[in-house]
Each structure stands twice: as structure tokens, then as C-alpha cells.
């Protein structure tokens, strides 16, 4: 199942803050920041269990993260990924000459990838290092 025409926001969560202080290479960090939070009604359309990996795609990249349902809804049409390495595969690096990239408001779509693998932070960012 997939969902189109979503807007991706990224930002702070307290769990992500705790996890980053606890160790960015940890499983705790993956569970805190390697997730995509859906509006409850939007999530029903995906027809999968909470926690199922999903692939989130924007014009700038794609990443596989665990799906969850928001506690900060309703926000139909909006998905939220906590700031960090997973979110930053998807954000718009162009700052439009102001210096700050666009971390919020990217158009996105989501596909369920039942057997998708959510990578740890070090492994995910390690892929950016060319051999």
C-alpha cells in the first residue's frame, strides 16, 4: 500500500533528544528517530500494523523507517520524522541563498515495505562515504 501527496515535517521529539544523548549509534536512537509518524486516519489507508517499515520518498531521496501513529494529531496529509540521519535523507538541501536548508514542508509519498530494513545511524550515514 502507498500514500501520495503528503507533506513531510521534521523536528525535535523528546525521545529523539534522549536517544541522541544516549548514543547515536544505539538501537534506542533508531527507535526514536528512525520512525515516521502518521495521522491516525491516514495510517488506516496504509493497511498495515504499527511498526511496519515504510519507505518515505521525496524529490531529494528515500529512506526506510518504522511507522507509528501520532500522538500529536490529527494532521491529515502530514507525516513527521524526528530530526536526524533518517530525516536528512529526505530534506531539501537548497537554502534558496539564505543559508538554511528546507527541513520542513517537502512533498512526499510513502510505500509499505514489509520486509524493509531500517538501518542504524552509523550504517545509514556510512553509505554517504564513498569507498
Amino acid at each position: 500500500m502507498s500514500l501520495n501527496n503528503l507533506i513531510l515535517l521534521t523536528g525535535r521529539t523528546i525521545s529523539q533528544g534522549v536517544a541522541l544523548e544516549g548514543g547515536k549509534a544505539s538501537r534506542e536512537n533508531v527507535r526514536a528517530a528512525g520512525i515516521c509518524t502518521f495521522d491516525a486516519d491516514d495510517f488506516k489507508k496504509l493497511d498495515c500494523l504499527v511498526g511496519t517499515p515504510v519507505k518515505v520518498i521525496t524529490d531529494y531521496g528515500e529512506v526506510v523507517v518504522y511507522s507509528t501513529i501520532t500522538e500529536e494529531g490529527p494532521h491529515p496529509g502530514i507525516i513527521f520524522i524526528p530530526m536526524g540521519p533518517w530525516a536528512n535523507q529526505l530534506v531539501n538541501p537548497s537554502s534558496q541563498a539564505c543559508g538554511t536548508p528546507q527541513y520542513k514542508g517537502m512533498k512526499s509519498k510513502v510505500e509499505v515495505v514489509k520486509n524493509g530494513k531500517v538501518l542504524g545511524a552509523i550504517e545509514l550515514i556510512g553509505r554517504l562515504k564513498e569507498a
Partner: protein
Amino acid sequence: MVEKVRTVKDVCCPFCGTLCDDLEIDVDLKTDVVVEVRNGCQIGTKKYFSSNPSDHRYTKPLIKENGEHKEVSWEEALDKAADILVNAQRPLLYGFSSTECEAQSKGVVLAEMLNAILDNTASVCHGPSLLAIQDVGASLATLGEIKNRADTIIFWGSNPVHAHPRHLSRYSDFIRGYFRTDGRNDRYIIVVDPRNTHTAQVADKFIQINPSEDYELIQAIRAVLRGSELDVKEVSGVSIDDIKELVEKLKSSNFGVIFFGMGLTQTSAHHRNIDTAIRLVTELNDYTKFILIPMRGHYNVTGANQVFAWNTGYAYSIDFSRGYPRYNPGEFSSVDLLMRDEVDAALIVASDPGSNFPAAAVKNLFKHPLIAIEPHKTPTSAFADVVLPAAIAGIECEGTAYRMDTVPLRLRKVKDAPGECLSDKEILERLIEKVKEKLGE
């Protein structure tokens, strides 16, 4: 009863821009590890505990050899780091937001010696706020004023329950103040956000705005404030009636404040969102007292801006390539430089661009030699060619930090750093000496 712990009181927490100054830390007398943290939020508490020795805490300098980090002496690591910097044609010195002001000063010295680019995390965070302030000024005040006076508090594009967890209880919401003796009941909290955040859920009024349409809404509010009847019935998902009601509420406040965050700086209008928010605040002062405060993320990014500004004239994104400081975000900002692949070596201090920069920028960052001054294993330091292990400012060394409202507070040393860690300041001082040697000065 034998004392097993040493208690340090009135400790300034080195996590977020709220810079809470009332933490109490218990340190085990024998092992010198943190055993208890009182008054801190979840994140601050975790930061203190994570300073204890662990498998993700660096204790010795490292150099990357054959893809693996190898332990080396300080002499060898500093020598290699200095070589990298001196041989680079366009080095970048980035970060500085999670360390104290003296270290930030050393960063300026080093950048000038190398004719480098000097930048801090404001570049990807509240840089737009600074850009806006440079264009249209700002009406600011300290957090104490908010605590004592504010009866209308707006959180716009900011979610303090998650990002500044004790802000509401110490300064902006639940706390009793001199003129707000009934605390929460004397205040009216408004949240503007595309999501019904946890902060919105404890507010009096939640305005759900369409994402990335904040500029238009603030323009509408300002025009209504000026007395204009607008042609439209709805702006950014908010009805004209709601806008008019909001304007009346703001005008009739005793003391209002807008706290704003990444919802304004990181959406596509960036600094223009802040520009118009500042002008709204200025225009509200025709009716009552209103101020605004940016919700700074890192506990001392404000300090980095202050230190860079009083040394160079500029707060961030500074270029020394022609022998004097020049400032131009968009041209000399770290992510833009990386996207143009214009940087050929980087020194990252007290920050984690590997996690926090867009992936395409990190890709280019990793193409060139990378030095990390960093206490922990992160997606930046894990891939650095040289790792210089740092003591954590605010835990293992003291210094000054600036709160989000630019009040300077003194960070305490609560315990010693493990292993061979040195403070950021000392590492930068040693690096400066090495670079001087190699430049033949």
C-alpha cells in the same frame, strides 16, 4: 553516615537554549561517575549520565588507518590535524554550539589564521532569525520578564514540550510570576502549528495552520491590526473571524510574547517568516507591550553568535579567505558551501553535521579530510580522519554559556573528564600552536 556522593548544586544544564540553572548532580566519590540528576528534564539528565565512561565515549585521540580508528598520542593526532588544515585551500571550521565561550573564541583565532570559513549551527537553525533581526530589528526581553509579566504567550512553529522540556514550567506557562501570581491561570497560551502538538494540547488556543503558509497568515494579522478589511475569507487554513479574534486578544494583552522555532526558520520562507513576525511584534507595541524570543536549540549557540560577533562583527557564516571577515549566508554558509563542493577540509567542533546536515551535503563533507573534536561516537566522528576526544563543557569543564534570551550563565565542572580527554578550549589552543608552527610564524 559516610558520604558516598559529592553533590553539586545550581548547575547549568548543557543541552538546550533554556539553560536551566537549577540542576543538582550527585557524583560518586570513589568512581567519579554521575549517579543522580535532580531537576533536569529527561534530555539534560541523560546528557549527564552519558558523560560516564561507555563504549560510545572517546577517551583517547584516534587517527583513521585502513578504515579503522587507531589510538594514537595527542602529539600525533594534533600534528595530523594541523597538517590537514594547513594544506587545505578552503577549510571549514564548523559547529561550536555545544561548547563554552572561551573555546568559541579560540575557534575565531584558528579560522583567521587559516583564512578559513567559520560557521556555527545557527547556519541550519536560527540563522534566519538573525538575518531577519539584521533587516528589521527586534523587540526582545529576558525570560525573567516573561515569567513575571507575560499574560499572552504564543508558541509559533515551536514545540517546547519536546524541544525545551522545562521552558513551560520555569518561564513561560505554569510558573507563578511577580505580576502573574496565579501562574498558569493568569496566562493565555496560544500555539500555532500544522500539528496538534503536545504543546498545543496544553494550550488555551490551538491555531492549526497549513504547513509552510505562516508568512501569509502573519501578513493577514498585520493588515487586520492596521485596520484593513481583507478581501479573503480564509488565510492559510485560518478563518478571517479567527484572525480578527486573535488580533483583539493580542491588542488587549498586558504583556505578550511570541516564542518561535524551526516551524518558521526551516520552512521555505525562512527568514522572511521571522521578518514579518518581528514587524508584527513591533506593530503590537502601538497597543501594548509585546516582545519575541527565538527558541534557540543548542545551549550555547547564542554564545557562539555572540563570541563570533564581538570578534569579527558577524554572528555566523563568516569567510576569512581574503584576510578579513566577510559575512554572507547563502554564499559562506556551511551547507551551501558543501553543496557546491567548495570545501576541501573540515574541522567539526561540538556539533554533529553527519546527523543534522542534508544527506547530499554530508556526502561532500565526507569526500575530504575531516577532523572531529567530539566526546562521543556520532555519525560525524565515526567517519572522521582524526578524532580529538573532548571533555564535555558544563559537565567536565566550566565556562560561560548564553541562554536563548542572551543572558550569560556560568557552566560548572561537576567531575573530571575520563581518559585523556581535554577541554575543547585546550584542544583548540594546542591546534593553534601546531598550525602556527607549520605556517612558520
